[in-house]
């Protein structure tokens, strides 16, 4: 009985591994990740990177990041397209297990980039999310999101610029700079 040379076995094993790896890739997801482009110059990967982008594209469990988030987004000060991010805002979210009237919401604080996030291991919400609001020191009335979130934990899936038919624009605290705390001393 003839034995296959070791080189043939190795080539077959490599070919199988490559075929397996290729068959497991998701070209749609890969394209979404590619579309995000490179990191901004001077901003390292971490909690402050890529503000305003759909966080769960990379952090949703399909990679490439191994930090899995369940809900994440960026809050800006105003509705203006060039608005600075809002640091120190409180984002309040109810999931479908909690009634807005008396239920216990989750709260998150935005960082210097305006980003907030929930790690999947800490919170895996039941959709739809509802009665989402933003508050900040010096603002009497929280800004309330009137609609629900049905399935996507990335704010930027629906909230991106420019505002139009398929987007309500980025998430903001107040419409105009004049409405910001301290604008009228």
């Amino acid at each position, binding site marked *: 009985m003839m034995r296959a040379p070791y080189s043939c076995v190795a080539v077959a094993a490599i070919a199988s591994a490559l075929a397996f790896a290729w068959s497991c890739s998701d070209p749609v997801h890969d394209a979404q990740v590619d579309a995000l482009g490179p990191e901004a110059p001077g901003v390292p990967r971490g909690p402050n990177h890529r503000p305003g982008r759909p966080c769960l594209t990379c952090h949703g469990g399909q990679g490439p990041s191994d930090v899995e988030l369940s809900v994440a987004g960026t809050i800006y000060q105003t509705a203006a397209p060039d608005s600075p991010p809002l640091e120190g805002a409180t984002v309040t979210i109810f999931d479908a297990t909690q*009634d807005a009237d008396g239920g216990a919401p989750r709260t998150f604080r935005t960082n210097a980039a305006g980003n907030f996030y929930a790690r999947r291991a800490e919170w895996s919400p039941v959709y739809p999310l509802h009665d989402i609001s933003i508050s900040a020191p010096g603002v009497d009335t929280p800004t309330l999101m*009137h609609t*629900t979130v*049905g*399935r996507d934990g990335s704010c930027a899936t*629906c909230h991106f610029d420019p505002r*139009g038919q*398929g987007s*309500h624009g980025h998430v903001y605290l107040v419409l105009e700079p004049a409405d910001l705390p301290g604008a009228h001393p």
Partner: protein
Amino acid sequence: MTARSVRIARPLALVLAALASLALLATWSGACAPPPEDATIGIVTPDPAQFPPVSMLLDRRCGSLDCHGARTRNLQIYGCEGLRLGDASPGCRNASGTDTTAEEHDATFRSLVALEPAVMTAVVLGKGGSPELLTFVRKARGTEAHKGGTLVTPGDDQDVCITSWLAGTTDADACARGLAAPVIAR
């Protein structure tokens, strides 16, 4: 079988086989031909004039931009709480936008009734007697896999809103109560 009968039968069999092959080929090529460009299919629909209350409920419960307010869905829902049409500003009037327009109600209506035209026709002709024949009803009720989960329970206000429209007379009061119902897990 004699030698003579074999001599006759073999050519006959070949001719029959050739004819059968040609017939099969003709059928197959016809089956694969595209339909005429002006082909249409008829749908018996519920009354579009009674749809706006249902449309508003669907917009609230199903039409967020990450669900059926996305253009990638087979069922596309237009309205002020999600996907806008034409020049309508994003958001409803209470969020600095404009309320759902008649054109948006119509676009949602067309998307919904065209999902399963034959089944929709059967349900409407049956006076809405078996709404669960429609996939969108089964998905909303959670009896068929649905990424958005179970959204209505048979007999609740939201379900009655939809099924009453399918039956011919929209229960606008049920639709209004359904709009106000809290969003909690079922």
